[in-house]
């Protein structure tokens, strides 16, 4: 019988302890800086190297480039850039390989929508998603061959 009462003592003691509930919908949860949320995309920085699309394990990134409008400059500029958040697993590999940090993670995590189509985010949307961008980005890159 003693065990039963001991347990009851524990539960009674816990009744007055501070609560751990978060007021989630009212107060958004603050995520740490390294949090991998919805990406921010900066078309200015993109050099259309296609690395992000190639590393993506779920093939959710599709991009097209066009010739640079200024004929004196070489290379391409980005034309369209879509991420399909139906299948994106926010694994962070695209930002890891991007040589210019054109694509960066942000702290946004709310992805619920009313339709599947709304989950297909285009370049404009991703560019506008410029709040709470990850700061610890540059130093975080795996340093090939050590520091």
């Amino acid at each position: 019988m003693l065990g039963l009462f001991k347990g009851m003592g524990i539960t009674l003691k816990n009744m007055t302890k501070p609560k751990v509930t978060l007021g989630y919908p009212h107060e958004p949860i603050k995520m740490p800086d390294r949090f991998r949320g919805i990406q921010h995309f900066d078309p200015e920085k993109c050099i259309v190297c296609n690395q992000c699309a190639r590393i993506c394990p779920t093939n959710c990134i599709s991009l097209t480039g066009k010739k640079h409008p200024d004929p004196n400059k070489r290379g391409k500029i980005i034309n369209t850039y879509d991420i399909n958040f139906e299948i994106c697993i926010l694994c962070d590999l695209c930002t890891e390989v991007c040589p210019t940090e054109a694509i960066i993670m942000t702290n946004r995590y709310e992805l619920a929508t009313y339709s599947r189509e709304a989950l297909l985010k285009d370049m404009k949307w991703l560019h506008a998603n410029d709040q709470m961008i990850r700061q610890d980005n540059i130093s975080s890159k795996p340093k090939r061959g050590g520091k």
Partner: protein
Amino acid sequence: MDWYIFVYPVILLAIVLVFVMYAIYFERKVIGWIQLRKGPTETGPKGLFQSAADVFKLLIKEDIIPSKADRPLFKLAPILAYVPAFSVLAVIPFTDAPYLKFSNVAVGLMYYLALSSITVMGVLLGGWASNNKYSLLGGMRAGAQMISYEIPLVLSVVGVVMSAGSLNLTEIVETQIAGAWNVFPQFLGFVVFIIAAIAELNRTPFDLPEAESELVAGYHTEYTGFRFAFFMLAEYTYVFAMASLITILFFGGWDAPFGLTFIPPLVWFILKFCCFVFLLFWLRATFPRLRGDQLMEFAWKGLLPLAIINIFVSALLKEVPFLSQYF
């Protein structure tokens, strides 16, 4: 025949409904606090209207009857479960004031125990009529459990009845006011009664009939909307009734202890009543569930002999001359 005998039951029903709503609210709050949560907070200030909203939702929900269910029985079962639950309240005296007593039946205690045994039928029929295997198993567990625990329940109050010399609940309280609360001389009976009462109420650790980790929801798996609400109502009305009964049988009803008579008797009754209700919530938050066979073993090999010993000791105390003066 006065008009109030028709009005008071309606008022009592309203009180019971309010109690049920706030019992559910406080159950969620208390268990929430114990589990380091806050419990309902959203609907109304501090979540006070949460249960009202839940009940309202249940009432406006679509009424679904499974196509393979036994329709008449499926509809009858919740009523059969609820009607006795409410009828037992008729004999419970809440204070000595005449307007809070409905029926001063000579066999009040037996009336309570007899009528409460009909509820089992509602539960069994509900489980069977749903034509669902989990419901069937839940119904069978409920039937077996409630029948087995009724025996220690009845036997454990025999001691109280012997000391009071009456089956009338008012008289039982009055003898306690004159003497000591039954919880002291009848401690063994009290322990057996409270355990059997929790089992009768199908609450943790005896909540096998609706063990959600085993039987989904037990006998009311297929019930939705207001029929489900009726089963819940029956359950909590029994909590109300059982808490009242324990207060009356073992804690002297509306008797004020330590001569604190400036507090009105009804308040004392409610205080004692709330202690038992809180105990139920507390147990639910702490204990795991027993297994079916252990439950039966406990009833027949544990509680039943204890109850019989209690009767024997009570008889001894009452009849042996030099002991009976302390009794």
